[in-house]
């Protein structure tokens, strides 16, 4: 086994050795700027809401409102509130909740994190571990029945909204057939429906993308070259075909994570899962402004970090990529 293939000398270790530090630094700086812009934007938006945060149906005595404002630092000038908040975020303190006395936003996020991370991680796994193989099966069996079957499934998954998939599955499998519980995660079967509903769209999307990307790769000249050199078909497929056709798949993984997050708002509501998404939706209906701000910023920070990771993965997968931004 001394064959040198086109990509064999770009292993992970060597990639780590010639890591483009300047590029990474620049990306990290950009990440911070983006995060700052988002913090500022959400702060402005939340303070642009007509009426104060304590305005509700019941009239509140002006003294009580003044006391509440003083307690949460809302009597300070806006710019001072802004810098206080920014300072808080920098020290990982997202402030207290306006609606639940004694509960901090940090605590709310920490409460929901386990549930959201579990279902989210399983959904990402499903997207990669089911979506990619389905796409490969379809691509290798072009225009035969496995291809047709996968593409039909993928079309349904892309077109039907996640909340429809979730509610219809809830009706059929939980209420009618009773195979899975209708809510909660007490039992492993409780994970099945939320994960399917959460990953449905992106699983189908990734299957379609893998298929078309694989078909394109199989047509490339280097595939013919590899065959002409007499490499074994399995090796050609894995080393040349799959690796190159997975590049576009990796680029969508960033958006996948982002959209799984927003998807979790509705999935956690339907299946009554106590995750961050449910806290977020609840804090919106409760008009709990610090919680809305805090969770948004948490999401933003997480997403920015994920996109960064995906970009680094992309560098590793595709050595041809230019490190300098095309400006």
């Amino acid at each position, binding site marked *: 086994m001394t064959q040198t293939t086109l990509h064999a000398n770009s292993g992970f270790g060597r990639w780590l050795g010639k890591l483009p530090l300047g590029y990474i630094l620049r990306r990290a700086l950009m990440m911070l700027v*983006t995060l700052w812009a988002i913090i500022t934007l959400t702060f402005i938006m939340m303070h642009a809401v007509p009426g104060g945060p304590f305005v509700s149906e019941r009239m509140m005595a002006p003294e009580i409102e003044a006391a509440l404002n003083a307690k949460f630092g809302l009597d300070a000038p806006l710019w001072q509130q802004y810098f206080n908040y920014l300072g808080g975020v920098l020290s990982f303190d997202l402030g207290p909740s306006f609606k639940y006395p004694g509960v901090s936003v940090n605590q709310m996020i920490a409460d929901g994190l386990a549930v959201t991370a579990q279902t989210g991680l399983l959904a990402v796994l499903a997207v990669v571990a089911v979506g990619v193989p389905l796409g490969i099966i379809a691509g290798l069996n072009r225009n035969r029945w496995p291809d047709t079957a996968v593409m039909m499934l993928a*079309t349904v998954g892309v077109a039907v909204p996640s909340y429809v998939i979730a*509610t219809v599955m809830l009706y059929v499998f939980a209420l009618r057939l009773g195979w899975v519980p209708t809510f909660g995660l007490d039992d492993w079967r409780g994970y099945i429906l939320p994960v399917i509903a959460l990953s449905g769209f992106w699983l189908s999307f990734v299957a379609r993308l893998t298929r078309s990307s694989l078909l394109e790769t199989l047509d490339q000249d280097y595939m013919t070259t590899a065959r002409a050199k007499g490499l074994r078909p399995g090796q050609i497929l894995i080393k040349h075909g799959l690796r190159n056709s997975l590049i576009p798949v990796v680029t969508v993984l960033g958006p996948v994570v982002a959209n799984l997050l927003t998807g979790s708002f509705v999935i956690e509501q339907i299946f009554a899962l106590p995750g961050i998404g449910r806290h977020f939706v609840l804090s919106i209906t409760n008009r709990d402004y610090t919680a809305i701000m805090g969770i948004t910023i948490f999401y933003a920070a997480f997403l920015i970090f994920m996109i960064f990771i995906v970009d680094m993965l992309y560098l590793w997968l595709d050595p041809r990529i230019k490190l300098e931004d095309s400006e």
Partner: protein
Amino acid sequence: MSNPDMKLTENPWALLELKADAAEVIASPARGYWGDVWARLRARKPAMVGLVFIVLLILAAVFGPMISPYSYFEQNLKLSNIQPIFNPYTVSTTDEDGTPETAHFFLNAGNFNLYEVDARGALIGLIRGGRKDMAMRRTTYQIAGQAVVVDYSQQPTRLFVDDVETRPGGWQWNKTYWFGTDQLGRDVLVRQLYGARISLLVAFVATIVNFFIGVLYGGISGYAGGRVDAVMMRIVEVIATIPLTLYVILMMVVLQSGLISVVLAIGTVFWVDMARIVRGQILTLKQSDYVDAARTMGARPGRIIVRHLLPNAVGPILVTLTMLIPSAIFIESFMSFIGLGVTPPLASWGTLTSNAVETMRAYPHQLLFPAAAISLTMFAFNFLGDGLRDALDPRLRK
């Protein structure tokens, strides 16, 4: 297959006489770019099915509520949760005078009420005056001179006429409310049609915003290049880091729920993807000779972008649009589903679905219709989008 009877009278290989005008005849009618696109699109069945569905949906959404005798907010609590199909029983007696008396009615298994219908299947009304016997879990009615007992002590609910268990006569369509009624006795069909109006309105707004902001933003950024482009694209990058749904949610918090807010929120952020695509197109197109020519002749940048560059990028613009429209429709229904969209009594497909979830154990039909409506619409737009992509750019075909 050759025909042995056919006799060749002359040499089939003889050269035709070359005529000047015959050489000028074009074999097939000349088609422009759009004629070509249309012909390719028409060859694609799913795309055409999608197109026909969308046209029908638009017609139904525009004219349906005008024709319908019901309004989306009119409640009739006596006729709540009626199914779109039911299985009526028939009871008949002859009174002392010899006149026959017949009554048709059906049992709503969700709330154990009896509703009188006529022979065609049109609703007459709720049958009242039942004597409830809570201990025995049964209700007794006097219908057409006979004692009708609804026994719900066990599943499925049974019905006795004069102590004889009776079976219904056969399924019938609801002729009064084609899609049934909801928890407040409102016509589901007309609410669906209003939902279609909202979805199409959102689709329309998304289109307009994409055309006027997305295309122009991307066009200017791509054409200007350099520092302007870098700044404009950094802004887009910052916006695009966060999923659009999250922005729309934040906007809704600021603007308060309501149809106008949904439309505004979607309109504000929904042009980012389009801006990126158009910028990419313009970056390549602006190298073309015709741009240099226009510039030499003194055309200003605005004119070059609008009259020369954008028309040449119309293919990718349309393809992006067909992908963005269903996602706008999806975001609206998603927002309405989590309770941040249109406010009651207005109905969107999202609110209809989320209301139906509460009652889906007893009345699954209320879930079926909005779920089917949004799914079919998404299918239609997806099919049309795929077809249009193939038709606009045959090289992309896979």
